C-alpha cells in the first residue's frame, strides 16, 4: 500500500464514542459488535437532531477514529469515536462528545472493495510504517467515509481513506 502524504490543519469533530472491548459478548441479541451499535446510535441521533449539527461542514463526510488504550496489547481494549466535522464547537450536546483532531502530517491510504474488510492495520503498522521515513506522531488512526463509500453491502464499489498522523524520523 502506497499512501499520499498530506498536511492537514486541526479539525473539530462532534460525535459519540465507545471505550472497551467492542468484540466482547454484549447485551444485545443481534450479531453486531459495539462499533456497529455505536454507528447506529450516532446515525439515529444525527438524523433526529439536525439542529445539534448545524455547524457541520463537509456534509458527506463521517469518520471513525481508533484510539488504542494502554491496555490494548494485553486486553484488546480501545476507544472508538464516530462523528462528523464541524467548523466550530460552540455547542456540544449532552448526548455527544467532541474531539480536536491535531494539525499534523498524515499518511492517507485509500482502500478499495474487499481491501476495506482486510487486515489493513497489519499492512500499515507491520509493513509500511517500519520501512518508511516516518513514525507515528500520535497514536490513533482515522477511517474517512465520504460519498465513495456505498455501504458494506456494496463493498466492491466502495472506497474509504485511512489517515495516519505521522512525523519524519529523526
Amino acid at each position, binding site marked *: 500500500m502506497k499512501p499520499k502524504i498530506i498536511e492537514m490543519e486541526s479539525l473539530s469533530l462532534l460525535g459519540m464514542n465507545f471505550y472497551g472491548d467492542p468484540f466482547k*459478548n454484549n*447485551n444485545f441479541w443481534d450479531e453486531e459488535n459495539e462499533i456497529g451499535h455505536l454507528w447506529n446510535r450516532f446515525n439515529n441521533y444525527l438524523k433526529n437532531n439536525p439542529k445539534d449539527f448545524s455547524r457541520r461542514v463537509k456534509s458527506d463526510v463521517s469518520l471513525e477514529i481508533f484510539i488504542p488504550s494502554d491496555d490494548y496489547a494485553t486486553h484488546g481494549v480501545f476507544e472508538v469515536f464516530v462523528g462528523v466535522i464541524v467548523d466550530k464547537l460552540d455547542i456540544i450536546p449532552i448526548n455527544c462528545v467532541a474531539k480536536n483532531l491535531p494539525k499534523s502530517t498524515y499518511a492517507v491510504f485509500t482502500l478499495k472493495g474487499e481491501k476495506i474488510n482486510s487486515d489493513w492495520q497489519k499492512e500499515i503498522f507491520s509493513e509500511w510504517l517500519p520501512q518508511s521515513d516516518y513514525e507515528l506522531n500520535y497514536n490513533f488512526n482515522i477511517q474517512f467515509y465520504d460519498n465513495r463509500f456505498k455501504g458494506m453491502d456494496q463493498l466492491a464499489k466502495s472506497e474509504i481513506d485511512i489517515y495516519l498522523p505521522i512525523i519524519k524520523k529523526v
Partner: protein
Amino acid sequence: MNNIEMIYNSTQFIEKNLKNKIMVQDIADQAGYSIYYFSRLFNKITGLSPYEYLIKRRLSLAVNKIITTEDKIIDISLNYQFNNPETFSRAFYKMFHLLPSKLKTRKIYEHLILQQPLSKQFLNYINQENFKLEYDEINENAFTILGYITNDNKDSHYDILNKLNGVSKKHYFILYLNPLQSDRKIFKLIGYKNNDNHTPGNTVRKLIPAQRYMKFKVQATHYNLNYLFQYLYQIKLKQYYINKTHPYIIEIVFDPNVDNLNKRTFWIPIS
C-alpha cells in the same frame, strides 16, 4: 486454512497458555494478524472476544481447582495469571455470581456454567449457514410433566409415549435435566403435560414452576444438541439471564413425526 480452523488453532494456543502470561497481542501474533482484525474475526466465529474467552477458560479451570484441591485461593489466582486475589474474586463473581471463598466452603458447583474449550465441531456447527436462532421472551404458568426419564440419545420417544396411554397427546415435552453435561449423557424426562395427581408405574412427575423463559426456535439434530446447549448457555445467554438454581431446558415437540432438521422449540428459564 479457513477462518474456523485458524480460530480453532488460536483457541488451542490459548489452552496451552492458560497458566502463562499471555496478551491478546500474543494470540493475534500467533495467528498472524493485527489485534483489531483478529479480535473481530474471533468474535465473528465464536461470539466472544479473545480476552473474554481467555479469562472465562481460566476461571472455569479455577473452579475445578477450588473444588478438587486444597490449594489456597491466592495460589490458584496467581497460577491463572490474575495479578492478585481481589482481581480474581471480582472476575470470578462477574462470571459465576459467587465468590471463590463461598465455592470453597460449599463445594457445590453443578449449577455453575463453565466455559468449555471450543471444539472444531462446535465452531463448525455454530458457523453453519443455516444456524439461525429465532427467539422470544415468554411467561408460562406452572405445569406438571408426567413421563419417563431416559438418557438414551436415540429416538426412543415413541416407546415412551406409547407407554403413557390415557393422557392428552397434543404435543409432548422433553425436559433436559442436565443440559450442560459434556459426555453426552443428558438425562431427559419425556412426557406430556398432565395436571392429575396420579403417577402410574415407573412414571415420574415433575412440577415446572411459573417461569419466564427465553424461547428459541433453531435447527438441531440429536448429534449437535450438546453444541446447541453449549452455545446458548456459554455464549448467547448472558449469565444474569439464566435461572441460577439449576440449569434445565424444556423442548416442546409439536409433532413427533417432524424431521429432526426442522426448527425445534426450546425454552430456557431466565431470571
